């Protein structure tokens, strides 16, 4: 139960980073933390019905559920892709406006149009 509450806190920290931070890079890191919290929740859920790694050897009784692990493999790779794309967009915005702060970016884009 404690680990679940901690994961909820972690997810809310990531959400706070996305919502409240002004710096784009910090927002992207918040998205990453959110992703990590969701991944860990799934691993924890699969962990509930066993304790051994899902690599079959003789004498294994209760392995964890391998399906959440396989799905989270996908989620991790897609998280990396999203992060890379978001960072590239941030670099592009920085080059156009000279700032990572969303308020400044908004002002400078409004000034130009």
């Amino acid at each position: 139960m404690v680990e679940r509450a901690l994961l909820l806190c972690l997810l809310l920290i990531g959400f706070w980073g996305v919502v409240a931070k002004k710096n784009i890079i910090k927002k992207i890191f918040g998205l990453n933390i959110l992703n990590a919290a969701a991944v860990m929740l799934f691993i924890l859920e699969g962990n509930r019905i066993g304790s051994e790694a899902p690599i079959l050897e003789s004498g294994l009784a209760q392995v964890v559920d391998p399906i959440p692990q396989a799905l989270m493999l996908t989620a991790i790779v897609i998280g990396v892709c999203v992060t890379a794309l978001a960072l590239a967009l941030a670099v592009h915005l920085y080059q156009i406006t000279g700032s990572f702060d969303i308020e400044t970016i908004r002002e400078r884009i409004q000034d130009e149009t």
Partner: protein
Amino acid sequence: MGKRKAWSPTLQACLAIGAMGVVLLPVFLSQTPWPTVARDYLMQYGQDESGARNLVSAIYLGYRAFDTLGETIVLLVAVIGTMGLLSRVESLVNTVGDDDNTIQTVSAFSLRGDKRSSHVLRTHLLEVVTGKIGPIVLLFGFYVMLYGHLSPGGGFQGGVIIASGIVFLALGNQQDNTSALSKSSILGGIESVSFLLFIIVAMSGIFFGKGFFGNPLADSAYPVGFIVLLNSIIGLKVGASIGFMCIAMMGGHD
């Protein structure tokens, strides 16, 4: 902009987080028993049907290989998007002030010769450590990739380790000799060829009457060969594409 007074940003953020917490609390604290039926099936038949002792490999390259195909396409699209955006960023060095004490940009990592060694982040420690450790990391990546069916690991994990080996090799060349592995044309080539190979191997099952992503070796003595092959292709693809993106973000795309 409306006339009404906006709430303070902190209050807005607190409200959003509170609402998010209320919505997610039941998800995180649910005590529903996790179904064991899939786990039991896989423990009983997984190794016979796919040949892999690592059940995670058996799932993502056997039962749910379509997921993996979609995932590699997502990776491809992310690489294309990142490259498309970064290729418009000609040189970040010009846009930042040339004060030597500030950490200018990562772009300066790709400078050649004297300029390169004068960069603040380019210490001898970095060059010696990354140059020496790079080949070892590459070897370890290939081990993780090739033994993914027997031990913890697999194509994606091994691929990421290979990518870090590529990044180490790109960072650690002291005498300015560039390795072929940090050239964007080579990395892009590896990525596209391995994606093509992935599709071809996925279709090979059709000719053996097993269907798309069917295992053509299912009736032979070594059904696991299919998973090893797919793992190596995915490892090469992930390693090349993530290494490609990292090197491009360090400014080495030319």
